């Protein structure tokens, strides 16, 4: 466990790690979410699912096996107790509620729990890959993203503008400033990251949100 968090991504990953319990089956999106396991306490072991067809994803150790990559295409390993299967079964697990938590990046999240993270019309259309199935099927969907876009605009909106990845699917947002839960009543601010004021979060969040009384 790393104790000094030097950049926003680390702050986010470390906070997401606290949401995971020992034995959870977890699918991590590429990029920031893959940093989450670095911040797990030693007594918390999660089981990583990889949508290209396995359980027990581990970091590359030793020689590269060209037949063994993670869902980002990077050489990886499988941990003892893991299992390989085909893409059909992989998504039976994902859609069927057998993945406890999925952690993904986001471009926009709105007060209805809608998530947009797969395309920017006219600009970036990489395809949704497994993201739409993951947000639909995982028991808990955590969006791990920086609070604002590069141009400084809020990514936490009253209503998404970009094409959706999933409708009403997000349970929680973790940014370098705050932690929100998505409820029937809209966003609830649950936590402020260390050293962040409520005013800062209000200023940098376009969406309305309720503040958890415990915070006030």
């Amino acid at each position, binding site marked *: 466990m790393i104790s000094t968090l030097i950049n926003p991504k680390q702050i986010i990953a470390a906070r997401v790690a606290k949401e995971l319990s020992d034995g959870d089956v977890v699918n991590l999106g590429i990029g920031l979410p893959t940093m989450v396991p670095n911040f797990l306490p030693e007594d918390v072991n999660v089981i990583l699912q990889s949508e290209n067809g396995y359980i027990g994803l581990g970091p590359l150790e030793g020689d590269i096996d060209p037949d063994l*990559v993670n869902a980002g295409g990077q050489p990886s390993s499988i941990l003892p107790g893991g299992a390989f299967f085909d*893409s*059909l079964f992989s998504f039976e697990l994902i859609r069927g509620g057998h993945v406890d938590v999925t952690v993904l990046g986001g471009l926009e999240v709105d007060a209805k729990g809608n998530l947009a993270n797969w395309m920017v019309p006219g600009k970036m259309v*990489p*395809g*949704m890959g497994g993201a739409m199935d993951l947000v639909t*099927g995982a028991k808990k969907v955590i969006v791990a993203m920086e609070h604002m876009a590069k141009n400084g605009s809020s990514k936490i909106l009253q209503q998404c503008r970009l094409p*959706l*990845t999933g409708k009403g699917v997000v349970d929680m947002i973790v940014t370098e400033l705050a932690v929100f839960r998505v409820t029937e009543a809209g966003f609830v601010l649950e936590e402020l990251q260390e050293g962040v004021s409520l005013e800062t979060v209000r200023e940098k969040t376009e969406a309305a949100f309720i503040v958890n009384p415990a915070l006030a």
Partner: protein
Amino acid sequence: MNKMISMEEVSTLFTDGMTIMAGGFMGVGTPQELVSAMLEANVRDITLIANDTAFTETGVGPLIVNRRVKKVIASHIGTNPETGRQMIAGELEVELVPQGTLAERVRAGGSGLGGVLTPTGVGTVVEEGKEKITVDGREFLLEKPLRAEVALLKAYKADKAGNLIYHRSARNFNPLMALAADTVIVQVEQIVEIGDIDPDEVMTPGILVDKIFVQGGCQS
């Protein structure tokens, strides 16, 4: 029934305008030599069904780069910039399908089902033009089956009856595609005699496999 086939024979199995499925996930589990055979056979205007379009140099990527593809049905095209470029230029039709839905559609095509009722994509652009079916108060998209004329698979090992064993994450879409094409061609690393594979360990039964090409081209 001899299913063993040479690279020369492989080349004769393709025709312009065909629909082809190819196994693989970012090139892992894609039969690279069969893809090369297609390239050399100069086949054009194919419809390609694959999880992704891999990279410019590997997987099914070279088929895109060399403009052999008229339409691609895939879940991800982001790692091969040429796919996006041709799509934006209007040179290539791209149908993006959620990965789990793509797997289900191929399986439905191969297993006699009328389609798939999936919650994935409800409320997104994926639902455009599709029928929605409500089951017990919840909405699902009716996603239609996919089939191909030829499926190109990659396996680790085959016996001469075509029973296949895949290796690690190179399994991915290969077993599904074995069900869903008129002709199934597999590239294998290793060929063994009938009876050498324990029947409990077979991942794709030989009755689904029409042609076996041993990687490197040597037939035993």
